[in-house]
Each structure stands twice: as C-alpha cells, then as structure tokens.
C-alpha cells in the first residue's frame, strides 16, 4: 500500500456536499436538529386550538394530522423499503372498519379506544404481512399492480360485506353508522360541543402522531432501518450481505399497514360512519402526492408534504385564495421562463395595456360584456375587473376561450423570438379571462388542477421533493 498523501484524496469531492448545501434554498432546514423540528411542529399544532375556537380550522388541523400519519406510514414501504405499494389505502380502510365493528352498536361491542388501537396495530401488521407476500417475487410496477388488486379486493369485500357467508359484517354500501366517539376507558370525547368540532381530537391525533413519528424515527436509525434502505438500493446485494430481505420486506409492509390502520381507527372515531367510497383511489393518489412532494424517504418531508398539500387543497376552496395562487403561479412561471427578467415587466405591462383597450372596446359594444364580476368578489377579481372583460353571461364564450387558450399555449411553444413575447400578451389576457369565467367558479375541479400544477413545478425544479434525499443511480 502506498501511503502518499495525494493518492485517494479528492478535495472537491470532500467539499461537494458543502458546495451543494450553499446552493440549496432549504439547506437551513437540514441544520436544525430533528427533535427541535418535531418539537416546533408539535407546539405549533397544539397552539392552534388554544388560539381559535373555529371548528372548521380545528377540523382541518385534525385532518391534516391524519394525512401526516398516512404519509409517514406510506414512507416506510415506499421511501425506505423501495416497495411500490398501491394497496396502502386498504390498510387505512381496514383500521376504520375494525374500529366501526369493535366500537359501535353494530355488534353491540363498545371497546375502549386504546384497546381498539392495539388490536388494530396487531391485525394491521398481520394484514401487511399478507399483502406484502407478493413482494417476495415481484418488484416495481409488477408489485404495484398486485397490491392495487389487494386494494380492490378490500373494496369488494366491504361493499359486499352485508352478506358475507350470511353474516352482515360491514353493512355493504350503506357502511356502518353510529360509531362511538373516541373514549379512554370510559372517559368519552364527544365529537362536537353544541355543533362545534371538539378540538380535543386534535390532541388525540397529536399524541398518535408523536408516537408514530418517534417509533419510525428510531426504527429507521437502527440495523433494521439500514437494512431497509440497503434492500431499496440493491435487494440482491443486501441478501448476499446477510440481510433476510424477504422478512425485511414483510416488516416494511407491516409497519406501514399498522400505522395506516391505527390512523384509520382514529379517523373513524370522529366520523358518523364508515362507507366504502371514503377509501377511494383519489385518497391514495393524494397521499402519494404528499409523500412525493415532501420528499420520498424523509420523515420531515412526508409531514411537510402532507401539511402543504392538505392545507393547499383546503385553502383553494375559497375562490379569492385560489385566485391569488393562480396569478402568483403565472407570474412565477413567467419569471422562471423569461430572460432577461425585465421582459416579465414588459409582458405584464403590455398585457394590462392590451386589457384596457379590449375592456374599453368590449364595453363600448355592449355594456353587459364587462359586467360579469360579482359584486362581492375578492380583491383579485376587483383589481382585474377594470381591464379583464368579464361578461355577465359568458355562455358560449367559455368553451371557445378555453380552446383558444390551449391553442395559443401550444403555438407559443413553437414560435420563437419577438413573436413569442407578442403572443404571450393575448395568451395571458385569455388565461385571466378563462380563470375568471371557467376555472374560478368551479373550485372543486380547479383546486386539484392547481395541485397538479404545483406538483409538476416542484418535480421539475426538485425531482427528489422538498426535503427528499437526492438519489443518484450510477452503475
């Protein structure tokens, strides 16, 4: 062995992380110790019910914690084990139904909630073992499809469970109603006080959240967590380095399943009933979106993703908020796409100028063409009303504008140079028009479209998610 100091040293490589770090917008978050971040999050969440009595706000906090738990559980199999599990929501539903069976008038069982959670933890793990079995032979897309079938089996069973070998187990499409509220050994937690959401549920969810987060963190920083990540990187190599990969895969499934099932029980304890359609594929995709946005493999990322996505989706129910988000996104996209930057100002100014002319012309032809803005509209719409012509009854103009907008967007990807800037002006104007007449009036469709846009934007700039680990595949 030669002992020369220069051999085997590469100063740039040694400093690579430091160099990357300096260029990272969110590098700061990495330097805060994990327990401090968790504490800050817990304190912030715990303070919300103290600050506000608003039942809606507190119920959103509760639901956000439910999604945090779901994302954390999904992260075990997908983020650490590298096993694409599309049957995940079945575990969530299983937990909810088990709570409904063990804690309602259905069978006259009224078990105390902590006991239900323990039962669900164990049964969920067993179910996880079962659903995880195909992972011995299948990986990637193949495993995804088979686990998706496991989910489909769950839906079939609960939908037809009103006559399961002659027994009415799940109530079929009508589900199970009149569930007991969460209770701790006889101390009941009513779902609402005089019609207002009982904010104590936030604390119940928070306790479960801290327990799950802590347990998963500890298991991740042990030989089992290391083995999970090793099998994600290279299953065969992990097996040949002495790790029982078949067992470890089942363990990853079981952990995720237990977390999801307990979350399901908690979720059910607050609801009037459980129904098959609650556990939809949309829910699965939403949880995946949270995990991917936050960063696959990162616990903090999973929580952040859940908070961002859920709060985002809730906030977008409000037309004014979604208006702000839309126009901000347009301006950010322009800043990202146009060089030099001052061109953004020119294009926006030209759009507004174009708008005033169009507005004046439209108003001169027919008063009603510019009288569409509702009197109680938010600040954004009022600011736009002076230059975007919003007709009182858009009617046929809506689909035409929509199609023309898409055509303009397509054309703008082909043309170059000054024409592109020129084309941007009517495109932006039309985009504002389409937003105000077509998209803003339908927040339930639009909020998912905006979430999609957010995901696409983040995936382009940070494919590994906000807090995910940067993954490199060099063979």
């Amino acid at each position, binding site marked *: 062995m030669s002992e020369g100091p220069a051999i085997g040293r590469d100063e740039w490589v040694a400093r690579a992380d430091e160099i990357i770090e300096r260029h990272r917008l969110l590098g700061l978050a990495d330097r805060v110790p994990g327990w401090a971040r968790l504490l800050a999050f817990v304190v912030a969440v715990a303070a919300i019910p103290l600050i506000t009595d608003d039942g809606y706000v507190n119920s959103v906090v509760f639901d956000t914690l439910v999604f945090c738990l779901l994302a954390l559980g999904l992260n075990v199999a997908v983020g650490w084990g590298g096993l694409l599990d599309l049957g995940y929501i079945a575990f969530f539903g299983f937990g909810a139904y088990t709570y409904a069976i063990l804690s309602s008038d259905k069978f006259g069982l009224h078990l105390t909630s902590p006991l239900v959670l323990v039962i669900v933890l164990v049964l969920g793990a067993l179910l996880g073992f079962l659903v995880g079995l195909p992972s011995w032979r299948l990986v990637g897309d193949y495993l995804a499809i088979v686990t998706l079938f496991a989910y489909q089996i769950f839906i079939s069973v609960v939908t037809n469970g009103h006559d399961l070998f002659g027994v009415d187990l799940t109530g079929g499409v009508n589900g199970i109603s009149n569930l007991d509220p969460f209770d701790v050994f006889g101390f009941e937690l009513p779902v609402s006080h005089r019609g207002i959401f009982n904010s104590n549920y936030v604390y119940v969810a928070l306790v479960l959240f801290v327990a799950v987060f802590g347990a998963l963190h500890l298991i991740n920083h042990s030989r089992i967590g290391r083995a999970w990540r*090793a099998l994600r990187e290279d299953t065969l*190599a992990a097996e040949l380095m002495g790790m029982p990969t078949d067992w470890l895969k089942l363990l990853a499934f079981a952990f995720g399943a237990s977390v999801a099932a307990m979350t399901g029980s908690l979720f059910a304890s607050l609801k009037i009933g459980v129904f098959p359609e609650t556990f939809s594929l949309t829910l699965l995709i939403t949880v995946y979106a949270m995990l991917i946005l936050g960063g696959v493999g990162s616990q903090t990322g999973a929580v952040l993703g859940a908070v961002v996505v859920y709060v985002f989706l809730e906030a977008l129910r409000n037309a004014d908020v979604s208006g702000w988000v839309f126009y901000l996104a347009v301006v950010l996209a322009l800043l990202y796409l146009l060089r030099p930057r001052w061109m953004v100002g020119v294009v926006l100014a030209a759009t507004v100028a174009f708008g005033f002319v169009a507005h004046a012309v439209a108003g001169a032809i027919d008063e009603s063409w510019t009288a569409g803005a509702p009197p109680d509209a938010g600040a954004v719409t009022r600011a736009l009303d002076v230059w975007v012509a919003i007709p009182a009854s858009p009617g046929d103009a809506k689909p035409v504008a929509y199609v023309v907008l898409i055509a303009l967007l397509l054309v703008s990807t082909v043309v170059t140079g000054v024409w592109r800037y020129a084309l941007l002006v009517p495109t932006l104007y039309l985009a504002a028009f389409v937003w105000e007449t077509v998209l803003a009036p339908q927040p339930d469709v639009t909020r998912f479209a905006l979430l999609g846009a957010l995901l696409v934007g983040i995936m382009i700039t940070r494919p590994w998610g906000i807090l995910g680990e940067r993954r490199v595949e060099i063979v």
Partner: protein
Amino acid sequence: MSDRPLLELRGVSMAFGGLRCLDGLDLHVGEGEIVSVIGPNGAGKTTLFNLITGVYEPTGGDILFEGRSIKGLPPHRITQLGIARTFQTLRLFLNMSVRENVMAAAYGHTKAGVFRSMLRTPGMRREEKEIRELAEKRLAFFGDRLVGYRWDQPAYSLSYANRRRLEIARATATNPKLLLLDEPAAGMNPVETREITELIAKLREEGGYTILVIEHDMHVVEGISDRVVALDHGVKIAEGSFEEVATDPRVIEAYLGARAVERT
C-alpha cells in the same frame, strides 16, 4: 491446514434449461488458502460464485462448507455461516453513506430486533456502537482512502477504485471465514492493480480469511495464488500452481485457440 477443506464442491452442475454452465465441477478450498479461478469469458466463473453464495441452487452435486451442506440455503443464511463476496459489476448501496454501506453488512451477526430498536435498550445502543466501530475498522484497512471525511459521503461519490475497495470492506463486515472476490482488479490502473495484489495477501494475513478469487489479470493471479483452477465451458481443465496451469496446453488453447498451442 486441517484435513477437511473449508469449502468443498462435489460434482456441482448448473444448467439453465439446455445451457450447461457448469458440469460436474469438483473444487476444494482449504482453510487459509488463496485459490484463483481463471478462464475465458463465459467459462462459468461467476456462476460458480453464484452457486456457492446461494443465488442459484445447483441442478446437480453438493456444496459443503465446514463439512455441512449449504445447498438450497437462502443466500443470507450462507453469508451468516461465513461466506461473503464482492461483485464483478459493483453492487454498492449507492445512496447510502460509505459507513452505512459497511454497517448494513453487519446485520447477520447482530441481534437487536424491532422492539429493542424502538425502545433503544442499553444492549441495542452497545450493539449499535460496536457496529459503528466495526465499520470504521474495516474501512481503515484501506489506509486513509475511506476514512474521516469519506465516512459520511454517499457511496456514489466514490471513484471506481474506491468503490471496489468499499465492496471488499463491506464483505469483510459480515465477519466471513471465506471471502469470494469477483475480479477485484477489473478496471483498475497498473498502480492500483499492484496495490490490490498486496491487499489480497494482507487480507489473509491480518483478517485470517480464506480467499477464492476470480481474476483475469495474470500478474495478480501470479502474485497471490497458492493454487490456480482453470475453467472452460463449465469444466475444470487444469489445476495446480500458477506455473503449471499457465503452461498447460489446454489452458493456452482455451485462451488463445488451438493454433497457439501448436506453435509452442
């Protein structure tokens, strides 16, 4: 060296459908020996390693390790019994740190289970500390190349030669008795190749490992081998000291063709 070989293959055959990769191979490796396996591409060398480590189950014959059959055992059990390997095409855990790569390989001889890990019992903490120290010790085997600032770097940031070294460090972290090295000098420059030659000898001296190595570089084979086994088309065509095997007409024919033998 005891009379019972550490590893013994008795008439091992492997066929994939109609393709016979190995045919009735007998091979033994004594304790403390360094045995090289040579042969042209496609001779069945890597298949031999895959059979010993349990990736494939032989279609015929038996494999004994320390006198007991390991045929049909899952690979991780075989590794836990004391056989570790490196890969010809590197198979590191690329997105894990250098230290974690080695720590992960200690799984087989450590015990902390799910509950002890989540409760952080004193025994678990002690074990975790031992794994860490073991990893750092194994990495220190390669001088200053894989220590210090390298510990926390992801494996993908390593150079090719360092990746090969990390593979060896990872294999030794399973605490093996027998080490299978699959072309440890492939893709290395002459200086690094010379270093690998010294390193393999040092592995036996300091680590006490018995070593079975596949190698194409004849300088390496000459430098390290107690015994050389030549394979061609899944059949053993020669065995003995390096000189005996290197001058064997069948070996020359396998490598260079029949006319080359006529000229000698």
